[in-house]
């Protein structure tokens, strides 16, 4: 076939849970060109942070990403604590580590399900999400919410862990470990899965470094860049961490790294529970943070999470820059997609565990300060979309819609 077909994947597409646009040029079923377009989720969060106090910013930063929410707030809190010159209590550090590892469990189980769904293996999705639900219950019990746990505060954590909760966590961790052994076996031996995951989305060792890939993507290419090992934070200087690496350098390798990391996380959670020190869970941090700048890296489930915080001596930060893990992995996406089949596109995209909100971060949307709400009504929105398409040479304005449809 001489003619190439251009397929847009996104901004709205069943395989994308958030908006992004991949313009895929196909030759038959082979991808010959891929253009990655994001930015649909820019919420202006960094600007919003500058207008709020450090304490309020924790909750904004936590909502950068729905899945790695804890690690974002940990990173931010660490930056601010470094600026304020406070050391958090050991117990708080252990609780943060515990939450981070529980979060890794739920994030990786979520990813496993998504990966299953992208290759049409819905049973795996249902099973792994069922198990993830147990972890989410634990997180809700500890933090108070299912995803944005809100357990971090400046100078420590907000909630303590009780002995009964520890027992519950142990039980869940046992179940998850048991289940995960099965997933490891399944991932390694199911032929249809291996046939779909193996050999696609290649990103070699050198390319991983060149494109600045982080997390499971680079570890699958034998780049040992686990921040928990190279630059220990929270309680990771005491908790034994093994960085999992793999030499497949493809989607299969990323799967292996993730399922094995779940096993590691389980061990770390047990260690945290066994060695939880006594003491306070938080120290007081002044509202006004001394002038300075801090750049802190942590290991999110998706890879290296970096925050830059600059303070100007007031109770509001001067600049907050969030570089989420997914953002670093996007750069190699074009390279990974080209040369593979259309059928592999969703799973290759999913394999970096993309988080579009993380990438695009934020901009303010409800005008809380003035209390005004800007609600676009249906008609205005339609007008807008018609004009948007008109500007691109497509006239959708001729489609007649009965007024009774405009009840909204």
């Amino acid at each position: 076939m001489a003619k190439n077909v251009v397929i847009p994947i996104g901004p709205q597409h069943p395989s994308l849970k958030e908006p992004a646009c991949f313009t895929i040029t196909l030759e038959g079923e082979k991808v010959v060109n891929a253009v990655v377009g994001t930015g649909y989720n820019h919420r202006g969060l960094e600007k919003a942070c500058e207008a709020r106090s450090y304490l309020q910013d924790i909750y904004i930063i936590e909502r950068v990403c729905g899945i790695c929410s804890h690690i974002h707030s940990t990173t931010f809190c660490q930056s601010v604590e470094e600026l304020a010159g406070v050391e958090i209590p050991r117990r708080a550090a252990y609780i943060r580590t515990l939450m981070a590892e529980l979060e890794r469990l739920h994030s990786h189980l979520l990813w496993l399900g998504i990966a299953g769904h992208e290759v049409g293996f819905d049973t795996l999705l249902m099973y792994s999400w069922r198990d993830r639900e147990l972890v989410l219950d634990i997180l809700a019990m500890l933090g108070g919410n299912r995803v944005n746990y809100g357990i971090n505060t400046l100078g420590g954590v907000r909630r303590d862990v009780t002995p009964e909760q520890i027992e519950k966590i142990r039980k869940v961790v046992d179940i998850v470990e048991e289940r995960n052994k099965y997933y490891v076996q399944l991932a390694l031996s199911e032929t249809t899965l291996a046939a779909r995951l193996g050999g696609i989305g290649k990103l070699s060792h050198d390319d991983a470094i060149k494109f600045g890939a982080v997390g499971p993507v680079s570890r699958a290419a034998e780049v040992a860049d686990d921040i928990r090992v190279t630059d220990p934070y929270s309680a990771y200087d005491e908790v034994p961490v093994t960085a999992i690496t793999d030499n497949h350098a493809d989607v299969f390798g990323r799967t292996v790294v993730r399922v094995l990391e779940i096993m590691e996380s389980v061990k770390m959670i047990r260690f945290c529970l066994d060695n939880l020190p006594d003491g306070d869970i938080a120290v007081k941090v002044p509202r006004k943070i001394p002038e300075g700048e801090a750049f802190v890296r942590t290991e999110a489930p998706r890879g290296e999470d970096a925050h830059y915080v600059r303070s100007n001596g007031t109770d509001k930060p001067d600049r907050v820059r969030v570089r989420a893990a997914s953002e670093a992995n996007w750069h190699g996406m074009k390279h990974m997609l080209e040369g593979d089949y259309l059928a592999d596109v969703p799973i290759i995209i999913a394999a970096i565990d993309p988080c579009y909100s993380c990438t695009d971060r934020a901009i303010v949307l409800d005008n809380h300060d003035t209390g005004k709400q800007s609600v676009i009504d249906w008609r205005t929105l339609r007008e807008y979309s018609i004009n948007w398409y008109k500007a691109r040479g497509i006239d959708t304005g001729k489609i007649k819609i009965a007024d009774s449809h405009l009840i909204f």
Partner: protein
Amino acid sequence: MSELIAEKKALSTILEKFPFLEGKIDVQRRQRIISSPMERPLFEEVFSFVVTDGGFNCFHLVIGVDDGENLGFIYVLSNQDKVMLLLKQSAPKSNPAIKSVCATFPNALWHERELVDLFGTIVEELPEGPTYPLPDGWPAGNYPLRKEWKVEYFDKINMTYNPPATVGKEEE
């Protein structure tokens, strides 16, 4: 503080080449070397040195900051020992022109596009492509992360920026 061997080593390599930077670039803490802002010609010289000879061959991100009169750009690099180098460049707001590093580090592309959109930086030699991350129809000349840009004056429905005539000059 005694184990900062890798950091000291990386720092001494830079200081050896640029002795006049003594005091302007220092180890802030474990795994972090931080510099003070440099003008464009000096920055480009230092940058190309640390990348080629300094061993900082891994690019993480570039952070844009608003320093008031100037725009600051913090390039985050790391080397084999995972030591972070925060190299700062500054450019005046009146002509915030910097050179793209995309040729050396392809992963700088989005970060630099972000500088263009959010700070109004002029990034020379930036590859063609869509804007990122602001939406279509964003009014030209609006750079949200500059300090003088206030969210309150932005009309989100019509996408226009209407600063009140009285405010904006002296008070802010």
